[in-house]
């Protein structure tokens, strides 16, 4: 499985195929959210700048925005989340992925945290 990289907003990204990347939220993030009951996915073809709002995840209590870790265009979304949003809780870095994005500037990936740095970041958040 390809290496995960993380944003400070708790999204993860990993290479799926060439310059196409898969995006989701971290195990820490799903734990903070609690039971996910609804996911609003972007439209395929949508162009998003790095840090732009890309999706919405709703737990029983609240809605949270998911941001694009890199700039690009959405090439696929995980339709399984529509019927089974709880996959975000049970398998956040696997079957709980949100969308795939074709990156326009792959160098942006290098600015993100690797797993060790992200773990340290989460710990520093208390």
């Amino acid at each position: 499985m390809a290496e995960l990289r993380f944003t400070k907003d708790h999204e993860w990204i990993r290479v799926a195929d060439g310059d196409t990347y898969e995006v989701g939220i971290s195990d820490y993030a799903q734990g903070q959210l609690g039971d996910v009951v609804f996911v609003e996915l972007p439209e395929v073809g949508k162009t998003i700048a790095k840090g732009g709002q890309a999706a919405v995840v709703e737990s029983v209590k609240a809605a949270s925005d998911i941001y694009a870790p890199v700039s690009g265009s959405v090439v696929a979304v995980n339709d399984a989340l529509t019927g089974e949003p709880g996959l975000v809780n049970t398998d956040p870095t696997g079957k709980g992925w949100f969308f795939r994005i074709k990156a326009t500037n792959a160098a942006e990936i290098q600015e993100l945290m690797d797993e060790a740095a992200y773990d340290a970041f989460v710990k520093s958040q208390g």
Partner: protein
Amino acid sequence: MRPAVDRRADMRPDRPWEYAHLADADLKKTVLHALHVELGAKMVPFGGYDMPVQYPMGILGEHNHTRAAAGLFDVSHMGQVTLHGPDAVAALETLVPGDIAALDVGSTRYSMFTNEAGGILDDLMITNRGDRLFLVVNAGCKEADIAHMRAKIGSRTKVEYHEDRALLALQGPQAATVMARLAPASVAQKFMTFRTGDVAGIPCFFTRSGYTGEDGWEISVPADRAVELARAILANPEAKPIGLGARDSLRLEAGLCLYGHDIDTGTTPVEAGLQWSISKRRRAAGGFPGAARIQKELAEGPARKRVGILPEGRAPAREGTDIVDASGAKVGTVTSGGFGPTVNGPVCMGYVPAALAQPGTSVGLVVRGKTLPAKIVGMPFAPHRYFRG
């Protein structure tokens, strides 16, 4: 991932960083605080208290457990007050539209403190204990309520605030199974009645009532024995600790108002659909704050009404969501909304003009800029299962 814009101020389990600095300095703790932490609760501020929003089971699991078995809630943050003396009933009737004079000894009734404009200052439960009245008021309002009573009726009745008592709620279809072991006589008790007696050997008083739509009890216990009582209840396999998150989704599905959200000083009891709590005598005679407006709304109907709203899709519509009519014009606002685990879909309540309040009416909910179809429906969303004997 960052929290989406949300107007809810009190309880944000998803953004602990916003209140981390408050947790120790400014928030009060109930006597069960250490037990909540021991049970693994995630704590958040609510009504000025550091309260458990959920335990490791999670909001969804806790909600479903309460509907299927029995849930134990710490509601010690709520205010427990006794009004003493022979004039307590008549005095309290000058502040609430409820019929307290008609309340039998040992019975409990829901009412609200109103202001001169007919708005709601707080909602509360009132029990006739014979020689006194026992009140339970909301945490966030209790200091204002007590000051209000002392100022307005303090010369007629002694207002005693029970800071030395905790309050536990045991709710769900198996609450009676648990109570049968701990307080056998309570099983014959009917909905909205009050008893005194031992629960697990601890002297308590308890009403068969709650805030979930389920059968259950609210148990007032001396603060220094509250942990012992909570542990005795949790020793029963049916009972699990339940946090405020599930309390909110349970009460929303039950169609019950949350003060400060669904009702406040800007809403009247009639707009809120609470006119069932105002008897014929009190409607005719008035004599409570805001009676003129409330009587007018009872006679002519209110301009707007609190209604249940069922979104047709899966997206929850939260508090603050605009409600629009068929032309897209804003007609109201969602006052409580979210995911209803028992309904297995989104549910909300809010205020709409009386002309749109009929069940079956189509409305739109504007969620993140998109108008989603929804229908006005009767409440509750999940049927009440009270024990009426």
